[in-house]
């Protein structure tokens, strides 16, 4: 049993890293929104879920190529992000952060129920195909890496680096960092806080959409399982103290591996969730203890 488990580990490492890449994407979107607007977006997973089901509708049910589905998902993600920010966050500028957080719970319920009404409560297993599932053998080992898995990791890494670069080197990125640090001062410098906040919600939601579409080959997805990806994203983001993108990516990789390895040894389906919960508790207890050191976004 244990030996059989150990022999699975190399293959599971690949799966874990792919899963980690997807969590990283979701976590980056979450951190971006949190840092710029101060809102912990509990609807992040629901946005990912809804966009993913649009991609499913477009490319699996209607037969369009996968990339069109992905584009549709990103468009829907951006749209939802815009609506949430423009109509339910902006009117509450200056109100307590907790009110806005509870509003995202409302959005979670709305999106979750709407998707259930449209697509039903079934579990789906036909993924949105973006890249061929064929793969290559990793040199010197027996581990086969699928091109789709490789693409997922590359997309995650490129988008993570891209976001970091945008934050560091562009005007929009500088404005975002300024708003994240101090909205009042940013306003004094002539930055349109509303526009920057809206941009962060739209970009963050687009990342959620991409993460959702990429995760479809890995799980039997239904409206609920995709919605609760938000807690995985939170765990990864908490490891980066909800601030640092690089640490969030590291946290996501750690989480992906920690969720995958136990499956080699235990047949109980819930073990990954137990591991996630343990990591979440540790992150909250250690990194958010009173007086913990502050990190920078990028």
């Amino acid at each position, binding site marked *: 049993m244990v030996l059989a488990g150990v022999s699975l580990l190399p293959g599971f490492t690949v799966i874990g890293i792919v899963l980690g890449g997807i969590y990283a994407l979701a976590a980056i979107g979450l951190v971006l929104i949190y840092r710029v607007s101060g809102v912990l977006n509990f609807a992040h997973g629901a946005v990912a879920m809804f966009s993913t089901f649009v991609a499913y509708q477009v490319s699996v049910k209607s037969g369009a190529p996968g990339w069109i589905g992905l584009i549709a998902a990103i468009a829907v993600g951006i749209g939802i992000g815009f609506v949430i920010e423009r109509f339910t966050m902006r009117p509450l500028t200056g109100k307590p952060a907790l009110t806005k957080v509870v509003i995202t719970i409302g959005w979670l319920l709305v999106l979750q129920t709407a998707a259930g009404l449209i697509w039903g409560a079934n579990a789906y297993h036909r993924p949105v195909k973006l890249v061929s599932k064929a793969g290559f053998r990793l040199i010197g080992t027996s581990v086969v890496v699928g091109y789709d898995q490789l693409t997922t990791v590359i997309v995650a890494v490129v988008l993570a680096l891209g976001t970091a670069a945008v934050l560091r080197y562009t005007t929009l990125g500088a404005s975002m960092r300024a708003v994240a640090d101090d909205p009042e001062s940013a306003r004094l410098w002539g930055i349109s806080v509303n526009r920057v906040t809206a941009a962060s919600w739209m970009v963050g939601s687009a990342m959620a959409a991409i993460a959702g579409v990429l995760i479809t080959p890995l799980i039997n997805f239904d409206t609920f399982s995709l919605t609760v990806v938000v807690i995985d994203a939170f765990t990864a983001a908490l490891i980066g103290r909800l601030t640092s993108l690089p640490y969030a990516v590291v946290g996501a990789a750690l989480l992906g591996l920690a969720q995958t390895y136990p499956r080699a040894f235990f047949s109980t389906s819930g073990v990954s969730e137990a591991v996630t919960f343990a990591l979440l508790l540790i992150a909250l207890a250690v990194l*958010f203890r009173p007086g913990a050191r502050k990190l920078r976004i990028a």
Partner: protein
Amino acid sequence: MIGEARTVRWTAVGVGVALGVVIPAFLSDFLRSLAADAAIAGLIVLSLVVLTGLVGQISFCQYSFAAIGAFTVGSLVAGHHWDFWLALLVGVCFAASVGVLVAIPALRLSGLFLAILTIGVALFFDRFLLAPGTWDSFSGGTSSWRAGRPSFFGIGLKGEYAFYLFVFGALVLACLLVWNLRTGKTGRVLRAVRESEVAASTVGLNLTAWKLTAFGISAALAGLAGGLAAVRVGSVSAGSYGLLQSLLIAAIATVVGVGAIASAAAGGIFLVFIPEIIHHTPLSTQWFPLITGAALIFQLVYAPEGAVVDAETRIMRRFRRSTPEVPGEDSEVTERVLVRSS
């Protein structure tokens, strides 16, 4: 004037209780069973009134506490042939202790992170603890526990009206208990903790103990609701105690307002009877969470104090116009809670 306000309040409570007893007497058994469900849901809303309204902590895992009550009753009564009342007592105590356990990490976390923690707890219950294969002697594995209705001092609770009265009595007693908490010493202490933790600790209050107590009481109320739900439905399965139910009840509690004890009744009625009304419209009952979510968003953007609190304030103000608002009274509670925990 204040005396007059108090008379009005107690008259309203008396009329409410009387209506709660009398109206279901004229209803069909089906509606009576829904009324019992509403009273049980009211207990869970009440548990949020204690936690959020009194101490300013938020929780998205009340149904996980309810699950502890329900599964304790289910496994002990169905699996070990215990007496229902003993099983219920054990269930409530078990739920209270888990509540205290959840409160330990919560002691150091502010509102936002408490939200993440409690969602984590709800998912942990949902997908690990109550999932088949983890702890089957508690969760019942893939099958669900079956538990029959007990009798109450020799009175059988098999009839829907008798059972409803019993559950309604439990809700009224629990409300009185919370009312007592709020107006007595405990209430003053909890309010002090909610308003300013620093100030409360400088006058020598033990914050840790009080917060743990509040979580314990809240979880005990939810556990009681779960234990009652177990015999109301007659079977216990994990599907009814998920994260989405917890989010939904938190949304409803926010919509009706967590500042007033009357919200418990309003919230319970909302949760059970609105889907029933939707059922008679062209929409399916599946629309209910969507409508609740939309109501939550709309209300927080446009009427942030909560519907019931709003109404109560308006009524009480009519009788109390000449006296200034008592700080920490119902009216401003939600707003204050939200401000304080941010």
